[in-house]
């Protein structure tokens, strides 16, 4: 009974359209992420599901119940807020018990459920602490316990790890995933951190300007981005101008602006003819000097190494193609120093047709909001 359905939901604030006619089905027990840069409408979407904002138009259903106009306190949904919003005048136990008391759960049930929940989030013995006596990570756990103890059909999380430092964040990501599989509740998770979304989610919806750019499993969205925005926001992408030459069976041929023709699976094409942008991820590219005996993949372009950056685990080469386009290549550090290429080296970059994707020319995310997280 706890799937979440949005149908044609729009939210406008005065002149601004925050959420623009989105539809979505989140299935029961799913870990679903809304991913996008700040101001893309992901938090507004979450707040509408939670009941803190009413949609300007459209319908929201939880299970078989239409909750579009139902106030938050009557919904079987709980939220973990970005700032945690713990009550400073109550201690940990009282915070966690708050919802159950309002629901008039029997006293002894409250006690045992609060205890169980504090155990689940690893905070036994902290019940009598005041909120300001807890660390950020502990506060985060209390916020989670306070929401989960009510056994909601859906748990909404609004950038819950945003205030934690990187190490704690990584740890809490795994922790959240564990808790979710333990309690089996639908999680809807808002984040601007693409890595976080990929690590935890069953499915991701990438949002931009109040619309969904793409919805799918992390693997599908990463390997087959459907828009230029997704290709650039979720990880790094090299995008090259091209013209569709034709489709033969399940293979399509595209002539790149640099002059070579490459092939890719036909179903990746957003259209059957005309101009497209061809994309390939930096780690999918092979780099070799023209005289090298290394194998060469079917799709290839020639370029010159411009900058090489050694990061230990890999080396990033920024190469410039004949028509002045920049292509980034990540080469894993396999311990072969002779493989290093100096700037100025003429190289051939090649990749497999299966690693190729194509998108319409479109909007790119702002650089500062790029996929590296905050």
């Amino acid at each position, binding site marked *: 009974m706890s799937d979440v359905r949005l149908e044609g939901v729009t939210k406008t604030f005065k002149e601004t359209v925050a959420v623009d006619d989105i539809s979505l089905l989140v299935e029961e027990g799913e870990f679903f992420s809304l991913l996008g840069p700040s101001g893309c409408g992901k938090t507004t979407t979450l707040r509408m599901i*939670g*009941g*803190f904002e009413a949609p300007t138009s459209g319908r929201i259903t939880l299970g078989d119940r239409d909750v579009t106009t139902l*106030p*938050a*306190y*009557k919904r079987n*949904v*709980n*939220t973990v*807020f*970005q*700032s945690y*919003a*713990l*009550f*400073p*005048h*109550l*201690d940990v136990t*009282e915070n966690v018990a*708050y*919802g159950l008391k*309002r*629901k008039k759960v029997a006293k002894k049930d409250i006690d045992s459920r609060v205890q169980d929940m504090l155990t689940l989030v690893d905070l036994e013995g902290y019940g009598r602490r005041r909120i300001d006596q807890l660390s950020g990570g502990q506060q985060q756990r209390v916020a989670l316990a*306070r*929401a989960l103890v*009510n056994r909601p059909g859906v748990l909404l999380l609004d950038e819950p790890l945003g205030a934690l430092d990187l190490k704690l964040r990584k740890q809490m990501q795994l922790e959240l995933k564990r808790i979710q599989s333990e309690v089996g509740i639908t999680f809807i998770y808002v984040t601007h951190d693409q890595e976080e979304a990929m690590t935890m989610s069953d499915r991701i919806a990438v949002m931009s300007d109040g619309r969904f750019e793409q919805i799918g499993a992390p693997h599908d969205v990463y390997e087959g981005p459907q828009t230029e925005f997704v290709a650039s926001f979720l990880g790094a992408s090299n995008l090259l101008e091209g013209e569709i030459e034709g489709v033969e069976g399940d293979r399509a041929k595209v002539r790149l602006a640099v002059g070579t023709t490459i092939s890719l699976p036909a179903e990746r094409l957003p259209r059957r003819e005309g101009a497209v942008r061809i994309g390939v991820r930096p780690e999918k590219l092979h780099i070799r000097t023209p005289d090298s005996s290394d194998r060469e993949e079917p799709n290839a372009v020639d370029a010159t190494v411009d900058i090489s950056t050694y990061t230990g685990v890999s080396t990033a080469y920024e190469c410039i193609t004949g028509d002045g386009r920049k292509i980034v290549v990540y080469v894993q550090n396999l311990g072969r120093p002779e493989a290093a290429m100096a700037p100025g080296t003429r190289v051939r970059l090649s990749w497999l047709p299966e690693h190729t994707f194509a998108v319409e020319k479109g909007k790119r995310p702002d650089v500062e909001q790029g996929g590296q997280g905050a």
Partner: protein
Amino acid sequence: MERPLQRSDPGLIEPRDKPGEDDRGRKGFVPFFLTFPGSLWLIIFFLIPMATMMSLSLQEGTIETGYRLTGHWQTYVEALGKYDTQLIRSLIYGLVVTVATLAISYPMAYWIALYGGRRKNLFLLLILLPFFTPFIIRTLSWKFILADNGIVLGNLKEWGLLTEGYQVLATQSAVLAGLIYNFLPFMALPLYVALERLDPSMLDAAKDLYSNKRQTFLRVTLPLSLPGVFAGSLLTFIPSVGDFLNSELLGSVNTTMIGQVIQREFLVNSDYPEGAALSFLLMFGVLALVFLYTRAIGNTEELTGG
């Protein structure tokens, strides 16, 4: 180096002790320096007058023959016997004023803090605007407004809406209204500050945890604004108990407050010891009530928590 250096080693600077002492020395001096003007102020304008008054209250004599310190504490008993009505009346008035200003300013402060938007400061200014005129002028103008045949009552009587004998001035209501009016901002401003600091996501969280508007207010908003209620109550209660002007201008003999009595003792009867004793009795009364109130607020915080 074969063994670690010992503290007793000759020529070894003891790095732990020396700077520590210096630090402590500086730490001791800086707070003293910073609080010096305040301390001086308190000594000159609080401690010395208090001691003088305390001594005065234990003296005997008349203004003509001079006063001598005799430790005559019976003045307290006599003063309390003579003016217990006025003292108790003042404390009750203070309580009424505190409750009334709280009831009036809470909704006002709540609305400005949560819904004032960009005009918050304008609304605050509007609360304060009447208080740009002096206390005595403000109170005096109420005397004209409420006069038996003034612009309000006079007209209402002419139109036959009130009987000829109807009176507001020189009643308890007039004194209380004056006090409430004059002390309102002292309640409204601390309340506003407390409510303004309230994180709106707290209210979302309460809503999320099955609280309707009433429960959200009682369980979250009110407890979190208690510091403002507390500060506002003290700022209203203490000066209103000791006020003499409102009763003097708007009241009658039936509304005489302890402030008026003290003022008369000093300025009319020249009975300084009794005036001083009454001042201390007033102070003890206020302190006792404030103490009880502090205890009660502490408990409320726990109660609303549960």
